């Protein structure tokens, strides 16, 4: 009986090679089970961006006037910003799901499995991105009858860049949730305090060129600005310096986010 007990678990003997990649896939897949089991939630989350497109878009066109949009239609200018907004809201809230799991104990249960620490974070951030691809494409198609010119490959590239950015922002949100454990208000306080200034200063809602000089300067220090400019270029069917700038901003955000996130997650756990 004692010999039997010494033998490690069956699974341990059978387990194949592990890597951050397979671990990330498992974490991602667990997160994906939620929208897959309940696909209506995905459609429902499109309502908010559609409200912005349908109710804010026309006002924007009337108030600012077409010249501010570099000759494009209001919709062509505004839609990429709305897609960035979906990504921004989704990934920055990653941590709130985690906070819930921190309270119930399911996060701890997963921490006690051999999954690598970084996969816990990347897998979660990627989960926010996968629905985004579906949402981004859906919302673009919905806009076609209203005069949006759809360049599928450019849009896809734009969504990939957003995905890279989302991994970074998701990781930061994850780290924030870990730091503000048991203090939900800190998480929401910080998230909301940062979200709106970043959003407004990136020119998502209104062209930043219309603002005073100091706002233009401030927007240069906002990684989101480069991302929004890249998406606008791509959604209008071009690839140029703005795209490159957006890619660099996305990669920098991802690297910084992952560095902070992995540091936070491994500070106390082994």
């Amino acid at each position: 009986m004692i010999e039997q007990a010494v033998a490690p678990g069956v699974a341990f003997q059978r387990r194949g090679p592990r890597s951050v990649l397979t671990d990330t896939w498992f974490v991602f897949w667990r997160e994906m089970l939620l929208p897959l089991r309940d696909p209506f939630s995905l459609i429902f989350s499109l309502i908010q961006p559609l409200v912005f497109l349908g109710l804010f878009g026309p006002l924007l066109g009337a108030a600012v006037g077409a010249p501010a949009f570099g000759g494009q239609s209001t919709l062509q200018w505004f839609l990429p910003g709305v897609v960035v907004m979906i990504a921004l809201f989704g990934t920055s809230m990653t941590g709130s799901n985690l906070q819930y799991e921190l309270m119930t104990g399911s996060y701890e249960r997963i921490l006690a499995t051999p999954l690598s620490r970084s996969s816990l974070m990347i897998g979660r951030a990627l989960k926010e991105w996968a629905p985004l691809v579906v949402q981004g494409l859906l919302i673009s198609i919905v806009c076609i009858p209203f005069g949006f010119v759809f360049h599928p490959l450019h849009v896809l590239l734009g969504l990939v860049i957003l995905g890279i950015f989302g991994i970074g922002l998701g990781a930061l949100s994850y780290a924030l949730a870990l730091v503000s454990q048991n203090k939900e208000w800190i998480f929401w306080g910080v998230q909301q305090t940062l979200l709106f200034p970043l959003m407004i200063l990136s020119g998502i809602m209104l062209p930043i060129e219309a603002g005073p000089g100091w706002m233009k300067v401030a927007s240069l220090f906002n990684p989101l600005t480069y991302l929004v400019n890249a998406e606008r270029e791509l959604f209008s069917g071009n690839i140029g310096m703005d795209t490159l700038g957006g890619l660099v901003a996305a990669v920098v955000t991802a690297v910084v986010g992952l560095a902070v996130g992995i540091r936070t997650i491994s500070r106390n756990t082994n």
Partner: protein
Amino acid sequence: MIHTNKLTKTFTVKKETVEAVKGVDLDVAPGELVAFLGPNGAGKSTTLRMLTTLLKPTSGSATVAGVDVGKDPAGVRARIGYIGQGNGGGHSYRVVDELIMQGRFHGLNTTDAKARAETLMASLDLADLAKRTVIKLSGGQRRRMDVALGLMHSPGLLFLDEPSTGMDPQNRANLWEHIMRMREEHGTTIVLTTHYMDEADSMSERVIVIDHGTIIADDTASKLKANLAGDLMAVEVAAGSASEVRGLLGRAAAEGDIQENAYDGVVRFQLRLAQGSRLAPGLLKDMHDAGAPAQSLELKPPTLDDVFLELTGRSLREGADV
């Protein structure tokens, strides 16, 4: 299975250093069933969390299932099962999905994970709940699911942190039945924490009493009780023969107080007596021979709470003053 050397954890809370675990040396052999018993905040869970690599020790070392917790934490996690204080299932997930994912996390392929989930759900009475979301489960069902999650990869060593806290007696008994059956079938080594003394008493073969981050006793429950806490004896005699009885009892109880209460012409003596149940017949005869017969005699075997009281001067009972 487990070997620790001066395992220590200190926390800094508001610039004050709190020593949660102070140099714990511990050895657990394969197949043992060990319970950490102690009041809330004694350091039971902190010790468990260090052994399961959820917390980094401040100093000291630990080898768990043959692997050093500091050098290869993922290796430790692959070999152990851990059932924490909270519920392991994500609220919005289906029971069967969570079980299969847990198997995948541990490196099982999909086919094996599915088969293992089926087996566990059948043996833990969860088969009918496979497609139910966790949030719709009752407390007892959730706890059984936690056990299933902890066993998905058939670990040889299982840690349970307060496994039955907050459960009603029926569910507690049910949970223990499952744990014991699994142990019989697979010879699993089990380490658990509890602040229910009756649970530590009846379920585990070895009880480690922890207080203020230190192991203060480590033995089988019956030996702890016999060595540290004797039986509680109460004898009532007529007031007239109190002095003879006082002398007899004083000789029988080498140390310890003898309480005395007089009422309605009767004197009631109360004392703790090691092996009291064996001494009682002789004592009764001696009293009879001395012309001071007992009117009544009560004997109460000790509990682990009495052991804890003897060791620390405090009671383990919840709500007791610390």
